[in-house]
């Protein structure tokens, strides 16, 4: 059992939890993820690691309420226990293997979309702790959905915020911001790390390909075990089949088949979404989720 040490609501549907998990806290690195199962009947939910403290032996996770399981998880309070919390899973960021001196010479731009800000944060933080400066863009639909602004602001060299509706920061999407930085402000980057919804990562990658900036993305497809056993998370990268759980979750964004990934994600959304909406709407649920007749 893993105790919830802290809980914060980051927006209506986004929750942060700091969880006591000694083994994970001791060995995790930026880029990795955990699988959380709240109780006997819950799903195994893959969640990116947002922060960790080796001293407190805790791992911080951030999740959005998208289905029945995450809804139940959001109902847990500080002091409650999570039944299963396993990790760290997946590979840590590839750039972690580079000497810090080399990283310092690099210009890295992080692009975070919505809840994707959570996995971006520990990466920027790690670099900041080593004295490596990195820029960061946080993009969201509106002001309420901008999360972890304060935290990222502290560790990023420059932080840019964009909202689709212009309610906060620059009006537009993250690509508008990248274009402005590179084309108008004359910035140049050696590496882009984009984490967010698939559609965002797809378009960032199309742009960075044009701009010839190598780009890393982090994928979060539905998984069951997260250790390479089920193959549910398979994704085409450069024409090869990879398992996001063991070969990723980070991949060369210019090689990922996003269209296939989006179709695959849809499959599970169907099942999950149905369940959630049925619960929400009860007997009145006759479609509307786009999946039921």
């Amino acid at each position: 059992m893993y105790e919830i040490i802290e809980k914060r609501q980051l927006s209506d549907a986004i929750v942060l939890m700091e969880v006591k998990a000694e083994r994970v806290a001791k060995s995790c690195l930026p880029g990795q993820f955990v699988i959380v199962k709240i109780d006997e009947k819950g799903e195994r939910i893959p969640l990116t690691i947002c922060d960790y403290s080796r001293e407190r032996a805790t791992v911080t996770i951030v999740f959005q309420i998208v289905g029945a399981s995450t809804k139940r998880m959001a109902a847990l309070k500080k002091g409650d226990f999570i039944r299963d919390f396993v990790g760290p899973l997946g590979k840590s960021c590839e750039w972690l293997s580079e000497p810090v001196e080399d990283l310092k010479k690099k210009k890295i731009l992080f692009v975070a979309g919505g809840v994707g800000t959570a996995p971006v944060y520990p990466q920027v933080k790690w670099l900041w702790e080593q004295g490596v400066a990195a820029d960061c863009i946080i993009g969201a639909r509106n002001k309420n959905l901008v999360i972890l602004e304060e935290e990222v602001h502290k560790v990023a060299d420059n932080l840019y915020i964009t909202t689709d509706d212009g309610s906060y920061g620059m009006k537009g999407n993250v690509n508008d911001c990248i274009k402005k930085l590179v084309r108008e402000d004359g910035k140049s980057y050696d590496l882009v790390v984009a984490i967010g919804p698939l559609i965002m990562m797809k378009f960032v990658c199309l742009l960075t390909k044009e701009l010839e900036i190598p780009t890393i993305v982090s994928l979060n497809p539905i998984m069951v075990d997260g250790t390479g056993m089920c193959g549910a998370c398979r994704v085409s990268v450069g024409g090869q089949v990879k398992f996001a759980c063991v070969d990723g979750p980070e991949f060369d964004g210019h090689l990922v088949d996003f269209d296939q990934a989006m179709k695959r994600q849809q499959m599970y959304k169907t099942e999950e979404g149905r369940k959630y909406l049925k619960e929400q709407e009860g007997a009145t649920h006759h479609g509307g989720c786009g999946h039921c007749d």
Partner: protein
Amino acid sequence: MDVLNRVPVREQDPAERAHNFAEVCLGYSLEEAKAEADRCLKCKNPKCQTGCPVNIDIPRFIGKISDGDVEGAYHVISEYSALPAVCGRVCPQESQCEAKCIRGIKGDAISIGKLERFVADYAREQGIRPVVSAEKKNKKVAVIGSGPAGLTCAGDLAKMGYDVTIFEALHEPGGVLVYGIPEFRLPKETVVKSEIENVKALGVTIETNVVVGKSVTIDELLTEEGFSAVFIGSGAGLPKFMGIPGENANGVFSANEYLTRNNLMKAFTEGYDTPIAAGKKVAVVGGGNVAMDAARTALRLGAEVYIVYRRGEEELPARVEEVHHAKEEGVVFKLLTNPKEILVDENGWVKGMRCVKMELGEPDASGRRQPVEMPGSEFVLELDTVIMSLGTSPNPLIVSTTEGLEANKRGCIVARDEDGCTGKKAVFAGGDAVTGAATVILAMGAGKAAAKGIDEYLSH
């Protein structure tokens, strides 16, 4: 009494069981078990025992049943095996102990598996537990994986007095017994859980949610956590795919995923959150026991199910009993058939599978006749779901994170058969992690051999 024919075992009616997940085989009653035990010749030189990978003294336990001492029979089996209720259900006895039975030369072999199952079930129902060792060796041994190899190795080491901790990556112990083999063949709550409880009762600690290689490494276990030896029984969990077009479409699963969703995550049970896209028209590609399990699971979830296998009936690697059960329940076998492409609709979902008919050609190096395509025989099966059951290979995680541990071309850990010794000091391995996907009992045999190997190593 007819000594030539075995006492038939009662089974759930096929028409009924095709729609539920309750166990197919109902097992012997005490009277039936005694009658079957009485057929045993109690050979002085028991061939059956040599056919058993864990070397159970079969005539002795069967003799106890004949005497009406079922508890005694249980203690005989317990000397050799930690998982009798499991083995009585899933061992391929027909090619092991029962294949060597002298009674079987003329007439039916003794139903050793069903008798073992009876003894284990009786013991569980009566609350009879294995005997705990009083001896303490004050040495810690780590076991990686709580499947058949790990549980056996841990149980044997605990009986010798070692302080054993099993590290399990998933949230429930049992390995393939809980994620792979379905409820209708191996009930989880009653059978698997209680055998694991028995192993724990011997003094074994099980820590779940630990992915060795990620959460902690083998070297850390040996240096920082004070373990004197490590046994790797991490199984063969990596699924294979065919590499044909359309394989990443929605509705294509590995058998591992389909079975894990259903068995471990209990997608078939009301109240559990994990979804399963069960399918209405399902093809399972492959002919092994796992393929039968996947097919019979899909059937129970309401689908019309095909087994698609490139060789013929004779060559099916699954146990005869499993094939027979699948047929009885209504699974349709498309033999000598091989998939060429999975057909995908505009939304990315499976809509069919293009297959080709095969015929058996000349025997290859292994002696098996190679299937070859029949030109012009292609046809399309309309489907919404395809389950790939092509075998599994060991997870590279442990080898890649442990210095000095060697794997062969197939990704299997290199370890000695007789004692599980690897090239790395204090590290032993056995089961599917070493052999590639095999059977529960062979993994148990390897776990047993490694327990002896570890004891010898630590006694020096």
